[in-house]
C-alpha cells in the first residue's frame, strides 16, 4: 500500500514535467514563427516612415533616425497625382472585393443549404463538379477566361474580375458553409416548422443566425481572395483608372528609381482593411470552433 502511495505522485510529477517540456518547446516554436511572419511587416512599417534616402542606405537603419509620415501624406492627398491614383486604386479594390463578397454570400448560402439538406438526383456529382475547379491552379484559366471575357465584352470592366473571383471563391465558400449546415441538426428546422414557421422562415429565423460564424468566415475568405488577387487583375484591366491595388502598387516601380517608402506605405495601407476585418470578426471564428450547444 505504502509503495503505491509513494510512487503514484512521483509518476504524476514526471508526466507533468514531460508535458511542460512539450509546452515550452511549443512556445519557442511559436516565437520563431511569430518573428518569421512579423519581421517583414515590421520592416515594411519602418521603411514606410523613412525618407527616400534612408530607405536605400547601407547598412540599413532598423528604425529611422528621422521618422516621417511624408509617404502617407502623399498617398492620401487627393491633390497629388500619386495620391489620386492610390485612392482610386484603393476604391477600385474595395468595390471589387465588396461586390464579390456580397455576391458570393448570396450565392453560397442557399447553394450550401441545398447541398446539405436536400436529396436530389445528381447531388453528389454536382457537388463534385463545384469542387473540381479548386483542383486546378488558377493560372490555367487565365487565357480561356480572357478570351471569354473579350467575347462577352467584359475586358476592362470590374465585372470581369467580380465574375472571375466568384468562380474561384464560391467552391470553397459552398463547401465551408455546407459543413456548417451539416452540423446544424435538422430537427431545429423541423421544430420551427411545427412551431408555425414556413420552411423559408425556419431557415431565416433559426438556421441563418446559427450559421453566422460560417457566413462571416466565408465572407472574409472571399474578401481577402479578391483583395489580394493579382494576375487576373493585371490581365483583364489595362486602363489606369480601373486598376486594383495589387496591380496599381506596381506604379511605384519605375525604370530608374523605386520609391521604396511610398511602396511600403501603400502596402501597409493595403493590409489595413484585412487586418481590421480579422480583428473585428475573429470572435466569430472562435465561436465557430466552440459552438456546441445542441446535443447530437
Amino acid at each position, binding site marked *: 500500500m505504502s509503495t503505491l502511495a509513494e510512487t503514484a505522485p512521483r509518476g504524476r510529477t514526471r508526466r507533468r514535467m514531460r508535458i511542460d517540456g512539450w509546452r515550452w518547446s511549443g512556445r519557442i516554436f511559436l516565437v520563431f514563427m511569430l518573428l518569421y511572419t512579423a519581421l517583414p511587416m515590421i520592416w515594411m512599417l519602418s521603411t514606410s516612415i523613412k525618407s527616400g534616402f534612408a530607405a536605400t542606405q547601407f547598412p540599413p537603419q532598423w528604425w529611422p533616425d528621422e521618422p516621417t509620415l511624408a509617404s502617407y501624406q502623399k498617398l492620401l492627398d487627393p491633390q497629388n497625382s500619386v495620391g489620386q491614383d492610390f485612392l482610386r486604386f484603393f476604391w477600385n479594390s474595395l468595390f471589387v472585393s465588396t461586390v464579390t463578397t456580397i455576391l458570393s454570400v448570396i450565392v453560397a448560402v442557399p447553394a450550401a443549404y441545398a447541398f446539405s439538406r436536400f436529396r436530389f438526383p445528381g447531388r453528389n456529382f454536382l457537388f463534385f463538379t463545384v469542387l473540381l475547379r479548386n483542383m486546378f491552379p488558377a493560372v490555367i484559366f487565365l487565357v480561356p477566361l480572357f478570351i471569354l471575357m473579350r467575347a462577352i465584352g467584359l475586358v476592362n470592366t470590374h465585372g470581369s474580375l467580380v465574375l472571375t473571383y466568384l468562380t474561384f471563391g464560391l467552391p470553397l465558400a459552398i463547401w465551408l458553409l455546407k459543413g456548417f449546415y451539416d452540423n446544424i*441538426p435538422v430537427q*431545429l428546422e423541423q421544430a420551427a416548422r*411545427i412551431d*408555425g414557421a414556413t420552411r423559408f422562415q425556419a431557415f431565416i429565423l433559426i438556421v441563418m443566425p446559427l450559421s453566422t460564424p460560417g457566413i462571416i468566415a466565408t465572407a472574409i475568405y472571399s474578401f481577402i481572395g479578391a483583395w489580394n488577387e493579382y494576375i487576373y487583375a493585371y490581365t483583364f484591366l489595362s486602363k489606369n483608372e480601373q486598376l486594383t491595388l495589387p496591380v496599381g502598387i506596381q506604379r511605384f516601380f519605375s525604370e530608374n528609381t523605386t520609391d521604396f517608402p511610398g511602396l511600403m506605405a501603400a502596402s501597409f495601407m493595403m493590409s489595413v482593411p484585412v487586418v481590421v476585418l480579422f480583428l473585428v470578426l475573429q470572435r466569430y471564428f472562435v465561436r465557430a470552433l466552440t459552438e456546441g*450547444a*445542441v446535443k447530437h
Partner: protein
Amino acid sequence: MAHVVLKDLVKTYGGFKAVNDVSLTVNDGEFVALVGPSGCGKTTTLNLVAGLIPVTSGDIVIGDRVVNDLDPKDRDIAMVFQNYALYPQKSVYKNLAFPLQMRKLPGDEIDRKVKEAARVLDMTHLLERKPRELSGGQQQRVALGRALVRDPAVFLMDEPLSNLDAKLRVQMRSEIKRFHQDLKATIIYVTHDQLEAVTMADKMAVMNGGYLLQYDSPAQVFAHPVNMFVASFIGSPAMSLIPLEASTANGNTVLTGAEGWSLELSPRNVQKVAGATTGKVVLGARHSTIKLHKSAVPGSVPARAYTVEPTGDVTFVQALLSGAIVNISVSPNMAVAPDEQIWLEFDQERLHLFDGETETALKAD
C-alpha cells in the same frame, strides 16, 4: 384535443418501404406508444403525422381534417424531439415564446402563456438562461414546455427520454404520464424502449420492418402477443422461445425437445397445436410462469442451468433447453449452481404456442 386516424399509410424511399400499410386510430385524449426496434418505421410514421415528410399513399386525419397536404405549421400539432431541438441562440423564454410569436399572438398573451407554462413545469427561474446552460433534464422540460405552451390538438414525442440518464428517465417518465393525465392530451409517443411503452401508454402499436404488428393495450399485448416478434420484444427479460417438435401418438399430442424429452399438453393447448402448418411449434414462456424444480416432478422437463443472476429481489436463472436459452425467475433463497441439472415446469394456462413456420401465435378454436 383531437383524434388521429392513419389509413393505409405507406412511405417508400426508392424501392424501400419504410412504412407499410399502417392503419390505426388514436382516440381523443389517448396516449399511444409506437414501439419497435430501430429502423422499424416508427419515427417515419411520426414524421408523416407531423408533415415533415410527404406520404407516398394513404391518409392522415387529425380531428376531422385530412392533413396529407398541409404544412406542419397548419396541422395544429406540437412535437418533442429526441435531441430536444431547442433553439440554441434563444433563451428559454424565447424558446417558449417562439411558437406563439409565429402564430402572431399579442405580446401580453404570449407573456402570460409562457409564464404559465414555466410555472407548470417549475422552471420560472430558468427563463433567462440559454439551452446550453441547462442540464439534460431541464432541457427536456423546456422542450415539453414549448410543446404545451400552444395547446395543440396532438402531441408528438420522438424518443423524448432516450438522452437522459437512467434515474432521470424514470422521473421524467412519470412526469410525462402525469402531464397526460392532467391535460387529457392526445399523445403519440415513439420509443424503442418497450418498458416506456408498457408503463406509460394507453395503447401500444408494435412495429417491425415497416409493418404494424399489433395495436392494443399493453396488458393485451403482453398477455396475447400475435407473433414471436411481439412476444420477444415486449417484456423484460424477454419471453423465452423454445423450438419444439409436435407429434401425435395414440391420440395423445406431445411436444418433443431436441434432448428427447416430451411434454404433455392441456386439451386447450393440444387444440392450438393442431392448427400449426407443420410439426414445428415454438413454445413461449415468460420467466415468472416457469417453475424450477431440483428434481423431476410430473409434467416437468429436464434442463441444465447455464448462468445464475441474483438481482436482490429475485434471482434469474438462464437454462439451456432444446437449444434455446430459457429465463426463469426464482426466489433468492433457492440455490442453483451453473451446470446443475434442473427440471422446468411450464404453466399450461399461461404458456404461448407459435407456429414454427409462420411465427404467428397459434389459437384454439
